[in-house]
């Protein structure tokens, strides 16, 4: 499939940060198939550097990685006005409610736990990129947190 058939404008760039080469390969293959441009990093430190140098439109972020973990990458991104607006989707094996809420509260827009369905990941990326208004993004995040809290209480 031709990378340019999906969009008439330039391909949208996604950064995948994960220390497991297999995961990067899977995400990359799926995104490329849907016309995205993909860059990757194998740990948190390299990932943060690429956030700044590559200026991706969206970041897929793992949590447990050497050198710098995903939480720290997220904190750095939120603290920097140049990168604070980039939506981050967490993709991690950390599946507890606490981790989920922590990720969203720290600024991630989606939280997907492994194992994941590649097609679903692609769909969420597409939806996320459609919502451009930062206020609407924040509202969506808050809704997700409230929903999960309610589930926890039940």
């Amino acid at each position, binding site marked *: *499939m031709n990378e340019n058939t999906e969009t008439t404008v330039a391909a949208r760039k996604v950064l995948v940060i994960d*220390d*497991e*080469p*297999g*995961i990067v*390969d*899977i*995400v990359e*293959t*799926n995104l490329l*198939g849907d016309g995205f441009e993909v860059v990757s990093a194998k740990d948190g430190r390299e990932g943060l550097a690429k956030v700044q140098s590559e200026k991706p439109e969206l970041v897929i972020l*793992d949590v*447990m*990685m*050497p050198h710098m*973990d995903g939480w720290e990458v997220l904190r750095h991104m939120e603290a920097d006005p140049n990168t604070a607006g980039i939506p981050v989707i967490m993709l991690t*094996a*950390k*599946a507890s409610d606490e981790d989920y809420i922590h990720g969203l509260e720290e600024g991630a827009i989606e939280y997907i736990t*492994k*194992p*994941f*369905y*590649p*097609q679903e990941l692609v769909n969420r990326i597409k939806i996320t990129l459609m919502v451009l208004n930062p206020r609407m993004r924040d509202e969506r995040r808050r809704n997700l947190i409230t929903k999960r809290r309610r589930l926890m209480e039940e």
Partner: protein
Amino acid sequence: MMDLPADSSGLEFANNISASNGVVGATAFSGVARYLRKDSKRILEEWWVAIKLASPSFAELEKMRNPILYHEQSLDLIIKALEASTRSEQDTLLEQVTRMAREMAGERLRQGFILKDILLSLAVFRSAVLDAVGRMLANRPGTAFSVNVLQMEKRINEAMDIQVAAVAEAYVNARDAVIRHREEMLRFHNYQLVKLNDLSTQMGESLNMITVLNSAAEAMRDLAEIAASAIAIKDPKTGELKVQPDYGHSGCSPAIVQWLNSHLFKELGETIFDEGRPMTVINVSDDERFANAPAFGITTMVCIPMRTADKVIGVFYGIDYIAREFSPHEVNLILTFANQAALAAENARFYTQLQSAYEELQELDKVKDEFVSIASHEIRTPLTLVKGYSATLLRPDLNLPPEKRQKFIVGIDEACNRLINLIDNLLSVSRIESGRFRINPQPVNVKEVINHAVAGFQGQLGQHTLLLELSDDETRARCNRDQFEQVISNLISNAIKYSLEGQIKIATRKLGEGAAALVEIRVSDQGIGISEEHIKRVFDKFYRAETGLTRKTQGTGLGLYICKSIVSSYNGEIWAESAAGEGTTFVVTLPVWRNEPKTNTTAENAESAE
């Protein structure tokens, strides 16, 4: 039966009547006195017969207390009263009679006679004396004695009355003294009981064994008013009776504590322990058991068993440097306190046991939770790969090139290997834990198995390179093929986890010859190494060295524990050689396979059979 006195006392007596004139002359009654003295045996006999009838219980008591003596003295006083001639003589006598009567009465009261009986006895005695006088008069018919008889009876009654009054007074005095003594004793007992209560409360406030024994030793010293005290507790496991060097004593030097733990006290303590009775040695230098012992100037020793409801748990030792006795009351008090201390110590022991059991359970719970979380995470990662690769392969809209498809299929295969390895490890631990771990020795081709194990890791190496330096001889180790591969796989997987990159080297060689020959396998990485404190514990179950390398494949903390269990089961050894920052080498040695005698193999097979 009764002879008259041979002399003419009656006459003398009569001759003096005219002189008396109301004031009875001294000589007036001397004849009567002489008569009574001679008649004393009969008087006492009559009294004894009469009192036996009047109060049998008194008579019983009297029999044991030399009864005759008292009334001999009593009669003596009457006779003296009759002999007294002048007023001053009578006054002196009065004093003497009073004093003697008091003493006698006091003594009898102390001996346990009751007042009523003493008075009864005196009344009976008075009758016996008067009867004797009657007898005397009856033997002198024709002589007019009327006035003098009254005078004489008055005199006798006076002497008796003095005695009765003295008895009453002595009784009151004695009773006051007894009451005072009782009150004092009560006050003292009360003080001791309050103290006992305070000390027991204080001691019971803590559930910490050291605090309880310390305060018990101190309290005992205070309560028994002794120079030093120590508590020897029987260890429920070893059965050893021991004073702890650093707690449970008060005022004891280390040398004394050592002495109390010596052979001498081991025996002494055991006796007290077994018999459950207290023992006091007032002066150790007089006691042959202490003959060859250093005494440190110790004079008195008191050894008291510490008893709970159902058993003796230890012995309390009290020490004093001056010879002193312990009254039964004091021993009882110490015994009571020792029992309180025993209860407090037992409570502390139960509490400590409960506490440590509870902590152990909590720790186990924490470890279990952690393990479940780690294990689920360990499963999640390869499962994610399987799911990701297969779902991508199955997307109809993606036209993946064949080499990509092939790569994904290999990826699925390797992820499955990781899952299998994980499940093998979990099963092995479960077998080791439940004692169902099976030893099934066979000749294992070291080179071949290592090559096989390495092949499974090709896809997981990432930033690592693998170097094999396998000795060329076809050495067979005495192990089990699958279990040996599990050891090698765990060591490789460990090397990958704990080093970010670099070379992983596996080297083998044969050490020694003949029966002692060994195969040595070394798996080295170039990682950050293991520090001294971690290296001893890496083989513990669930132990994971904190490295700061937060990777998703952190491991379950089971791999090395399994390696150790397997290698040890085949009489091999495993250890780690490392210095922080210089990488780590795990070394395994296993005996070389020799054709074992049939019986040996069969026995082991039988052992391992289900």
